[in-house]
């Protein structure tokens, strides 16, 4: 089972990458009460029948790894959202793409911790593939608000091959500095 909110996001984004999408948008909005994530892709989408089946932890399309018969990303997420009275929606159209949106109330005692946003975003952006990804991240607290946007293609053009350790470390430094600005707002509150 996943340990943090970021783990759920990694799983859902990986589904989007593996759907053959050319564009994935990830919206991660956090405020005092909740964290809401929306992942939209223009990949292969799902038929109504598949959409009903993806909530079953023992269902898979059997294509990714022939012979391995479990797909746990969405069932894990639904289970975790249900446990904290959060929200989950799945909208998909075959041939058009999929949108997965969910919200976790942060003050619920069973809400998982946020997790490491920096390593999550770095791993999402660096997952192999030719897709573009736009990440929009925002934090809105009484102490202030801020946010940032990451565009995969812009970063690849600037840094080069995301498969190299040196490049990934520069990406990590960049994302870290963006996230540190949000941490400053968090620290102002305490």
């Amino acid at each position, binding site marked *: *089972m*996943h*340990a943090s909110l*970021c*783990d759920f996001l*990694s*799983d859902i984004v*990986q589904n989007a990458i*593996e759907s053959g999408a050319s564009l994935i948008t990830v919206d991660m909005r956090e405020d005092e009460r909740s964290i809401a994530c929306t992942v939209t892709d223009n990949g292969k989408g799902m038929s109504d029948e598949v959409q009903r089946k993806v909530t079953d932890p023992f269902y898979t399309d059997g294509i*990714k*790894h*022939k*012979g*391995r018969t479990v*797909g*746990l*990303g969405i069932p*894990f997420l639904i289970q975790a959202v249900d446990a904290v009275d959060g929200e989950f929606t799945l909208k998909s159209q075959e041939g058009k793409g999929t949108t997965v949106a969910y919200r976790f109330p942060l003050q619920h005692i069973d809400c998982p911790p946020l*997790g*490491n946003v*920096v*390593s*999550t975003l*770095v*791993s999402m952006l*660096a*997952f*192999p593939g030719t897709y573009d990804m736009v990440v929009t991240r925002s934090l809105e607290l009484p102490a202030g608000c801020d946010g*940032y946007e990451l565009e995969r293609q*812009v970063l690849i053009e*600037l*840094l*080069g091959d995301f*498969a*190299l*350790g*040196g490049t*990934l*470390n*520069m990406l*990590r*430094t*960049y994302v*870290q*500095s*963006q996230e*540190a*600005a949000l941490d*400053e707002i968090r620290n102002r509150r305490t």
Partner: protein
Amino acid sequence: MAKMTLEELRKLRDSKKSEIQKRDIAGKDTQIIIGMGTCGIAAGAKVVLDAFLQELDAHNLEHVSVTQTGCMGLCYVEPTVEVLSPGMPPVIYGKVDAAVAKAIIEDHVMRGKMVSDHVFDRPSADIIKDGGK
């Protein structure tokens, strides 16, 4: 810490590039492939990715390839990491954490010595077939 701009990132890249050109390229052609399937994520694969990047940075190994893949079929020993290094057999390490990642970089990648306690397998047939992606 002020937010880094894209211009500052560009400057960082340029300064790193000139640094790299001055050094011998250690670790070139080595590939580290981290299992980032649901099982890997749940077991802490992102911490492992982070640890590898930190170790590569600490040892100035800029040219080691670090990529991610899905489940390698060894869910019971996640996080799993495959290491392909010139002159060494392909190895899948299991139960990798930050300390093991450090040992893999320092022993396997830099000294050509396997971290025996964590060797679990060679790549499964379908991973080889798909090129490990």
